[in-house]
C-alpha cells in the first residue's frame, strides 16, 4: 500500500502495517473531535513516524497513485479537522 505524506513524498508499506496505521488514524480523528491540540500533535507525529519508519520511499520515476494521502507535517488542527473526521483517512 502506498501512503503519501503531503509535501514530503510517497512511502510503500506492507499490508501488515494497515491495522496499526488504521489504529493511529482513528486516534487522530478522536483528537480532532475533542479539539485537543496537544493530543492531536502527538498522535499525528506518531502516525508520520510510523509511515517513515515502516515504509520505504517510492522511487521518483514510479507513476503510482497513493491509497492514502496524509496532510503535511505542519498541518494545523484547524486544517486537519477536514481530513480527520468521521471515518478518518482510512475507513474502518
Amino acid at each position, binding site marked *: 500500500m502506498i501512503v503519501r505524506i*503531503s509535501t514530503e513524498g510517497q512511502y510503500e508499506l506492507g499490508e501488515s502495517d494497515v491495522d496499526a496505521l488504521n489504529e493511529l488514524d482513528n486516534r487522530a480523528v478522536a483528537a480532532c473531535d475533542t479539539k485537543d491540540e496537544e493530543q492531536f500533535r502527538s498522535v499525528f507525529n506518531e502516525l508520520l513516524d510510523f509511515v517513515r519508519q515502516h515504509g520505504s520511499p517510492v522511487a521518483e520515476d514510479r507513476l*503510482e497513485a497513493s491509497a492514502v494521502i496524509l496532510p503535511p507535517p505542519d498541518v494545523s488542527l484547524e486544517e486537519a479537522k477536514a*481530513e480527520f473526521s468521521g471515518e478518518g483517512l482510512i475507513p474502518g
Partner: protein
Amino acid sequence: MPGLSGRMSTVIKAKISKLLDRAEDPAETLEYSYQKQIELLQNVKKGIADVVTSKKRLQLQTQKLQDQVVKLDTQARQALAAGNEELARTALERKNVAQTELQSLDAQVAQLEQQQEQMADSEKKLRAKIEQFRSKKEVIKAQYSAAEAQVRISEAATGVGEEMADVGLAMQRALDKTENMKARADAVQELEAAGTFDDITALGPGEDDIDRQLKELSSTSEVDSDLAKMKAELGIGSAPPAGQLGAGAAAQTDPSQQTAPSEGQGQ
C-alpha cells in the same frame, strides 16, 4: 484491505478522471496533460526564485541591522565617556530593539532556507515523474488501441496528477509563509525609515514620542545591565549591578582606582 481511500486522494482522482473524460482522443489527452505538467514545473521554478528573493532581502536587512547595532553600541560608549548617561541610555534602548529584530530575522532566514531546500527537492521529484510520464506516453501512443490507451493514460495521469497536486500544496504553503515574512520585513523597514536606528547624536528635540515608544519596546533590565557593563569597562564608578566582568576585573575591585580605562575597547 477493502475500501482504503483517503479523502484527498479521492478528490484528486475525481478531478483527473473528469479531465480525462472530456477529451475524446487519448493522444490529445496525453499531450494536454504533459503540457500542464511542464507548466507546473515552470511555476515551481518561479516559486523557488521568489523564496530566494525574499531570503536575500531579509539577509540584506540583517546586515543593515548588524551595522546599526555596532554603531549604536559605539555611540552609547562615546556618550557615556562624555558623561551623558541619558544619551547613552537612549542609544542602548535602540540597540536593544535592533537586536530583538535581528534575532527574529535570523530565525526567518533559517526558515526560508529550509523552505527553499524543500521546494528544490519537490521540483526534482516532479521532474522525474514528468520525465517518466513523457516516455510512457510515447509507448502508449504507439502500442495501444484507443480503449486500452484510455485506461493506461488514466493510471499514469493519476500518478503524475497526485505529485502535481502535492507540489502545488507545498508551494502554496511556502508562499503563504513568505508572504507573512514580507509583512514583517516591511515593518522593520518602516522603523528604519522613521529613523529609529539612525544616528543617535543627530536627534532633534522633537523626538520624545519615538523615544517613549522605544523605551516600551526595549527591555529595561537589559538596557540597565548593558549600561552598567559599559560603565565598568570605561572605568566609570557607581556601577554596582555589574557583578562579574571577565575583562575589567581589576577596575572592578576599587572604584577609585581608575587606571587604564580604555582597556575594554575591543568589544
